[in-house]
């Protein structure tokens, strides 16, 4: 597609449930990023993939959060045992590569997660 695509756009789940959020990056982009944005705040880094491997997962808040990118394209962010504090917009982004400082990072519209 022309841009970064994220599904679902909105998700309401009950506390304790498992959630998966999907990201389809711009075609040909090898770098993929997940960010989380709370109301009134800037995006907060979670994890960065270069190809299939997680090059930097230092932003994942705890072991309830996990992300995969098995074929180097689509990525899934997985959240186990959701808590109310997980409610936020989860943004996915991609860039042509991750290694060059010149690469622009393009964002999707986000998945709005509400844990009730």
């Amino acid at each position, binding site marked *: 597609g022309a841009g970064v695509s994220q599904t679902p756009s909105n998700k309401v789940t009950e506390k304790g449930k498992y959630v998966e959020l999907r990201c389809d990056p711009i075609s040909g982009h090898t770098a993929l*990023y997940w960010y989380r944005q709370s109301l009134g705040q800037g995006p*907060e*880094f979670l994890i960065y993939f270069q190809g299939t491997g997680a090059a930097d997962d230092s932003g994942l808040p705890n072991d309830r959060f996990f992300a995969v990118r098995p074929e180097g394209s689509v990525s899934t962010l997985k959240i186990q045992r959701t808590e109310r504090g997980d409610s936020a917009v989860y943004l996915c982004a991609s860039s042509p590569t991750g290694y*060059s400082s010149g690469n622009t990072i393009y964002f999707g519209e986000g998945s709005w997660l509400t844990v009730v």
Partner: protein
Amino acid sequence: EDQVTQSPEALRLQEGESSSLNCSYTVSGLRGLFWYRQDPGKGPEFLFTLYSAGEEKEKERLKATLTKKESFLHITAPKPEDSATYLCAVREVRAGGTSYGKLTFGQGTILTVHP
């Protein structure tokens, strides 16, 4: 650890009233300072990347400038459609000279332009 601070938190302007937004940063080595625009309910939209002190970039009514400690986003004769949250972010150089993939964002400046 990277720190990015934006000011003011919110700015209200009349149409045509020029102003500037500030982004102060603290990094061990800068590999790019990025400006994004974010509309409500949308993802951030890329505006500019600046790499070295003294660099300037322009797009329509926006001009971004960079010093060693801060960046400014100047808005000339703004229109109501410029109303949005403006985010800045930095990419840091890591040991060995490569850059981290991630960007570290400030909290944003909410700009409202009244007709």
